[in-house]
């Protein structure tokens, strides 16, 4: 069984009026069954309102299924006794860099998680050090978080999560508010966690270029999983993605346009290097 598994997952937001009568129901996740393997880098795409955040919040038991089941590392998330184990197994990072950090000093903030878990003091410091090193923020350990850039703050948030030694980290649009450098820093840190520490990564994003190295991509549409495959399989379907209000990386789009312009190029080119190689072959 994978690190994450959902079966026939349904989640409905229920709106009630002042008397408590049901005013409206939004089915945000609609019959999702998926499996994520330990150690994979998984991307979740989908238009605004497609259900990505709602799904993500099920993976560390912030929300519970209306119907169906979610297992994290084999534990059913609706089992209250397992709540803390689940939260520790799957950590979460959100979009806004400014409201996830509570400590006055970077290292203190990163230490909060393990401290709450009751980890012995000496080990807390070891974890803080290794986590900050893993995201390239160790030299800022004595800094005040308010003085950091958005990308640096997000990496501190990520360090705070990995200090809890999770098997899995869920990032919900962590780069949406960042400048290009901040985006790059965060993605580099996340990829390193996956490559080096073998932490399972679930990355939600609207930036297509960020996920070309993912092992697997899920595309959501109106609460359901509309597409599932490798980045190459997914990004080969330019028109379908556009219908789902998405896009492909600019490299892929250019390759697609050139193909339509009559060049003999393979589908689903993902990197600059692939495109340049393919074009130079045509030149000969």
């Amino acid at each position, binding site marked *: 069984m994978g690190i994450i598994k959902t079966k026939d997952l349904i989640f409905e937001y229920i709106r009630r009026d002042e008397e408590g009568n049901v005013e409206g129901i939004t089915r945000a996740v609609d019959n999702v069954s998926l499996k994520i393997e330990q150690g994979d880098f998984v991307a979740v795409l989908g238009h*605004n309102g497609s259900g990505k955040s709602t799904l993500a919040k099920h993976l560390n038991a912030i929300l519970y299924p209306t119907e169906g089941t979610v297992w994290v590392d084999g534990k059913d998330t609706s089992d209250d006794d397992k709540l803390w184990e689940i939260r520790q197994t799957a950590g979460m990072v959100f979009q806004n860099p400014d409201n996830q950090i509570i400590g006055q000093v970077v290292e203190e903030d990163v230490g909060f998680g393990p401290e709450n878990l009751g980890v012995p003091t000496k080990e807390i410091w070891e974890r803080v050090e290794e986590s900050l090193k893993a995201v390239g923020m160790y030299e800022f350990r004595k800094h005040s978080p308010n003085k950091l850039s958005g990308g640096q703050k997000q990496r501190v948030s990520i360090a705070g999560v990995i200090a809890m030694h999770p098997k899995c980290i869920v990032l919900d649009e962590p780069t949406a508010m960042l*400048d290009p450098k901040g985006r790059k820093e965060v993605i580099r840190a996340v990829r390193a966690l996956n490559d080096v520490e073998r932490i399972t990564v679930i990355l939600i994003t*609207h930036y297509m270029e960020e996920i070309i190295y993912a092992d697997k991509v899920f595309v959501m549409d109106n609460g359901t999983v509309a597409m599932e495959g490798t980045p190459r399989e997914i990004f080969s379907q330019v028109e379908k993605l*556009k219908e789902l209000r998405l896009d492909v990386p*600019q490299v892929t789009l250019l390759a697609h*346009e050139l193909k339509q*312009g009559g060049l003999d190029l393979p589908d689903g080119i993902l990197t600059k290097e692939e495109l340049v190689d393919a074009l130079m072959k045509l030149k000969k």
Partner: protein
Amino acid sequence: MSIILDHVNYIYEEDTTMAYPALTDVNLVIPDGQFIGLIGHTGSGKSTLVQHLNGLLKPTSGAIYYNGADINDEGYDKKLLRSKVGLVFQYPEHQLFEVDVFSDVCFGPKNLGLDKKEIQLRAYAALKQVGIADEYFYQSPFDLSGGQKRRVAIAGVLAMKPEVLILDEPTAGLDPKGRDEILDQIAKLREETGMTVILVSHSMEDVAKYVDRLIVMNKSRVVFDDTPAAVFAHYEELEQIGLAAPQITYIMQALREKGLSVDTGITTVTEAKEAILKALRG
């Protein structure tokens, strides 16, 4: 007619130990009708700069002229200025508050003291301009999608009939289609009305596609101010200040290095397609 910034400096919390210079010697001339992109790392001063243009912030020193008049002179009508220089804040949907979409868009023109008929006509026109269909007019703004909320907030500013429209990161957090829709609508509006548009953005690809002038800020200063192609030719310097060239530009450079004769100043997919097809077919 124009906006002129003359040696503008701005310091947050001046006279305290927290004093922080957010604008340093900014000089700009913004003639009517330009489509301008404003880029820079987080904290470089972009939001501070645009809040000076409609008089929300007052320079610590230096002056800002709108159509020849110093906007910080005593007696200058700031309220009128704010309707002429419309600013859409970052995450403007957090500022929607009326019971329905239509009332929300009426708020600005109502504040200008226009008569009821005119207010409603303007709100209607503005909602149409941003592509919000009639069926949403009497819904609560909170029931709309992220992209729709953003567009309602933009309509609220458009309803004041601004001569200058400033958008502070209008596409942050939107899905790719939502990004394109908003920017396409703004480009179309600008063509129709001739208004000046200033777009603050973190997407190099978006500014490359839409604007005809690009202003780059770094640590409170304007460091480049030119056409996008000319600015992106400095990609190495841009990288040093937390920015980059559009992805397409890097592809063109790589092709050029391998001996394909293409222009490395190209920044968009459309231009790149043409250039590559031409280079390969001779």
